[in-house]
């Protein structure tokens, strides 16, 4: 306010005229309490004398400013102004608020302005001067041109013309090339000169030859030629102004770009660009197709890589600690491993559920690619189960689905139940070799030795263990069958001897014969039937049985004098024993079939689910070497 007054003082304007009203206004505003209108006033009246406990604010609508009455309508005038960017001082008029007070004017002009209207004030509108820009251009002197910039292809005049046009069009080379009319200009000049000469007469016709542009080029300059010339001059001038060693990085890179311009390469590039643009529809479509294909492949590759990376990071072995105890501790408490286990377990269950048990072939057909392309199925199933069983499915890590192939590759197996603590794979093998009795253990060992299975199996993977287990089970059965056979043979021998003794006394040959033959046959059959069905394991035994049969047959005529009753008893005996045999065989058969089925599934899925092995996840490796060893074990 004070400054305002000072200004007025300086300008010699009356001071007291404007100032009092503002003071009045101020006092009014400060002194008078604001009167509340409408309902709010009545509400305020309810408070009585005391001020309200909470400050009450009138809620204002923020989205529409209230029209403020700021007195009578402001006047607008067409204000003349000049633009400082114009050299000629053109006066144009634009609409401006009429200034309420006289604008500040210079002391000297005061007298002149006194009698004129305030509208005569000429504004200087500098708002748009910032748009008045010119480009930086290199410039050269005559000496410089003569010393460094001469070119046989370019005359001095044309060079100057080029620089002028570059400046005019601010380095827009496409426009410069479009507007470059040096040749046309020269032609016109020549025509004018000729016309002038015609007018002057033929006296100075030699003057034409003396003109500076004695060898006019009719060829149009190409854009590359112009650029090459301009850049060449720019580079040379730059080097002249700043020696190369003194240039800073920016300057040097600019200098390098300028001096390395290659018009031929540029022309070739443009030709290629043109060719690219002028391709026909088929070529474009082919390119499009290939590009989409490439994109698809790239995306798949990236996704696969990302998945692999994730899996790798997840399966990263826990850090090895110095003490084994601590190392084990860290291993068991590795949250990542546990989470992975939980998740895989969950997923496995859900898979089983969704594919309804008979999933072996279906799972086989699933490849890694399929998993990538159609992940929605299994994941949705997962989600469902995880929602059904919230406690058993902690969602710490995203559910990760692995194809059977991947499971096999990363040797991930699932178990129903795991025993606490750790076991070695070789322990399992060792345990299987031992039976209840020492004799049995020795028998098993000898049988395994017979089969060529070594005492210590080199790579005791879970798969090998499974196969070995089956083998041991079969060996056990074999031993059982042998035992039975020996017992039967002993009985046979006793009976045949008894028969021979009876044949010597009584003469009932026919019956005994028949019964003996019957017995022999029956026995043979009884031995035969199961053995024929079972696999090669029983081959040796089969041979034995046949051999025995033979002996039985040989014995028959000799033992023809056996007692009827005894024969009957023997028959009965056998009838008693046979069901057992058959049962055992049937069991063995069933077991065999089971074992084989499991064998297959185990080989395919590398999961040990059936044998009730511990509730344990072993993340052991399955090398390829396990396959032959398994085969060997089978043999």
């Amino acid at each position, binding site marked *: 306010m004070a400054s305002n007054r000072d200004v007025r003082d300086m300008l010699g304007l009356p001071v007291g005229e404007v100032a009092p009203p503002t003071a009045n206004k101020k006092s009014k505003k400060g002194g008078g309490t604001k009167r509340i209108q409408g309902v709010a006033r009545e509400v305020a009246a309810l408070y009585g004398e005391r001020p309200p406990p909470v400050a009450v604010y009138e809620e204002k609508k*923020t*989205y*529409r*400013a209230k029209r403020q009455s700021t007195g009578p309508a402001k006047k607008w005038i*067409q204000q003349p102004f000049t*633009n400082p*960017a*114009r050299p*000629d*001082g*053109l*006066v*144009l*008029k*634009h*609409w401006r608020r009429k200034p309420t007070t006289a604008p500040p004017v210079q002391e000297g002009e005061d007298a002149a302005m006194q009698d004129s209207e305030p509208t005569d004030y000429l504004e200087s*509108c500098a*708002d*748009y001067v910032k*748009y*008045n820009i010119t480009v930086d251009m290199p410039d050269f002197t005559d000496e410089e041109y003569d010393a460094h910039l001469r070119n046989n292809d370019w005359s001095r005049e044309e060079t100057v013309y080029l620089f002028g046009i570059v400046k*005019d*069009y601010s380095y*827009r*080379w*496409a*426009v410069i*090339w*479009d*507007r470059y009319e040096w040749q046309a200009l020269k032609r016109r000049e020549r025509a004018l000169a000729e016309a002038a000469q015609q007018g002057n007469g033929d006296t100075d016709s030699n003057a034409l030859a003396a003109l500076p542009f004695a060898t006019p080029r009719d060829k149009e300059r190409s*854009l590359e030629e112009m650029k090459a010339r301009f850049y060449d001059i720019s580079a040379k001038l730059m080097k002249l102004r700043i020696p190369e060693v003194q240039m800073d990085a920016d300057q040097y890179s600019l200098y390098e770009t300028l001096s390395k311009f290659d018009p031929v390469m540029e022309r070739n590039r*443009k*030709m290629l*660009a*043109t060719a*690219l*643009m*002028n*391709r*026909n*529809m088929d*070529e*474009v*479509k082919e*390119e499009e197709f290939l590009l989409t294909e490439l994109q698809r492949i790239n995306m798949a590759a990236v996704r696969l890589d990302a998945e692999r990376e994730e899996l790798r990071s997840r399966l990263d072995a826990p850090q090895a600690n110095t003490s084994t105890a601590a190392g084990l501790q860290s291993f068991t408490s590795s949250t990542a491993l546990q989470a992975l286990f939980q998740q895989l377990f969950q997923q496995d269950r859900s898979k089983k559920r969704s594919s309804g048990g008979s999933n072996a072939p279906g799972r086989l057909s699933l490849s890694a690619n399929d998993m990538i392309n159609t992940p929605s199925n299994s994941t949705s199933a997962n989600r469902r189960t995880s929602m059904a069983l919230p406690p058993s499915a902690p969602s710490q890590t995203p559910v990760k689905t692995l194809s059977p192939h991947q499971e096999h590759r990363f040797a991930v197996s699932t178990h129903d139940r795991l025993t606490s603590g750790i076991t070695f794979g070789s322990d399992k093998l060792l345990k299987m070799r031992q039976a209840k009795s020492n004799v049995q253990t020795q028998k098993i060992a000898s049988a395994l030795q017979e089969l060529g299975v070594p005492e210590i199996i080199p790579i005791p993977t879970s798969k090998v263990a499974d196969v070995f287990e089956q083998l041991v089970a079969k060996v056990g059965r074999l031993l059982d069958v042998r035992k039975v056979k020996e017992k039967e043979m002993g009985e046979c021998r006793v009976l045949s001897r008894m028969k021979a003794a009876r044949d010597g006394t009584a003469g009932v040959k026919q019956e005994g014969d028949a019964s003996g033959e019957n017995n022999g046959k029956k026995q043979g059959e009884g031995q035969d039937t199961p053995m024929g069905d079972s696999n090669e394991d029983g081959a040796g035994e089969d041979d034995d049985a046949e051999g025995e049969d033979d002996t039985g047959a040989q014995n028959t005529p000799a033992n023809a004098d056996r007692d009827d009753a005894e024969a009957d008893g023997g028959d009965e005996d056998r009838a008693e024993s046979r069901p057992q045999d058959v049962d055992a065989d049937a069991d063995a058969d069933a077991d065999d079939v089971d074992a084989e089925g499991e064998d297959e599934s185990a080989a395919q899925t590398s999961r040990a689910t059936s044998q009730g092995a511990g509730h344990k996840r072993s993340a052991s490796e399955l090398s390829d070497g396990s396959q032959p060893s398994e085969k060997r074990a089978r043999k």
Partner: protein
Amino acid sequence: MNIPNSSTAPTAGEYAGDEVSAIVLDPGYSTTRAGFAGEDVPKSVCPSFYGQSDSDSYLFGENAIHSPVGNLNTKNYWGSDGIVEDWDAATKLWEYSITSRLTGARAGDPAKNGLNDDPRANGESMDVEMEGVENNEKPMEDSPLLVTEPGWNSAKAREKYIEIAMEDWGVPAFFLQKTGVLAAFASGKASGIIIDVGASHTSVTPVLDGMVLRKGVQKSPLAGNFVSQQIRQTFKTASPEIPLTPHYLVKSKTQVDAGAPANATYKTFPVAPSASFRLNEEERVLTEFKESVVEVWPGPGRFTNGTNEEIAKSAPGRPFEMPDGWNNIFGSERFRVAEGLFDASAALTSEANPRPKDEWTIPRLVQAAVQHVDADQRPLLLANIVVTGGSTLLHKFNDRLNFEINAIYPSTRNKLIAPGSVVERKYAAWIGGSILASLGSFHQLWISRKEYEEHGASIVEKRCR
């Protein structure tokens, strides 16, 4: 606080607008547009045709040129090459278009305007005073003037423009800009290819950073008038011939069946209007026909290719009724009349109208224009193809144009920019001029009277490029 929304005006400086009440004049073959810069439509749109009954008096404006008066010749000041030919008429018509709606005739000083002069004064002093009167009556001393010109305008014609503006009208500042650039500005583009299909000419103008690439400017006479001529020929060759009776001849009409001869009573005139008047009136009927019936074959393929003609025939036709009541449904011929714009071999020909050149068709023009542009800029330009001009309002015009351009340049991203509203399409150049002349940054580009007096008319070549 006011939150700005779509209806609040932008603050000054936000769009660099600083209006100086400049006038924008956009003369075309069919109409001449004029208005104040900063507005969104030209306030004054008057026909470029004018009436001339005897050698001196001109009649301007819709009302004057469409009233059937005897001995009235309807003319146009444009030459056949798309450059103003009759400068006198052009000057007067432009002046009319500006003063009739925008500035009004300037009231002179009553002491000097000649009305209050003593008729007995001698001739010499009268002449002196008339000089003063003329100086006072220059119509546009307040407003700078921006005039548009076709891209192929000659240097001489350009100088004539500034002479008229400075000498005859006394404008304080002047600028000349090409229609192509302004149409691009109207679409918010500084670079692009502008396809302008007007009445007399179709032009294709490559523009880079607001500057026309002169070598690439293409023009051809295949435009609105060509389509009219094709329609006339269709009418003439139809059997029975389709009568083309303009409105002014019909007194009353009665409804007739489709294809049946008209049953109308006609007006008689004591002095029959001239042939040129009738031609112009017929043109109005044809304009209506173009607006309501004519359709461009949208592709794929040309109209004459394969079974396209059969497909067009099976499509439902469109009815049209002449001013005298004759009416019919037009089937495939409504595609045929516009096909010549894209396919010269499909144009209807006669002795008076020979087959148009292949280079005149719009696809070929675009191709030629692109060919004359530096290879690096071609994709940029093809991504901004601005379509303007009244004849581009033909039904399905843009579909066909899009198809044709994509057929020529399948490997670039071609984009047509065609304003949806009729006004913006017809007056794009004027709107661009309105934007340009209302910019604060444009103040320093005007050619001022002082500069003109210093350098002469040739300054226009130097400044308006």
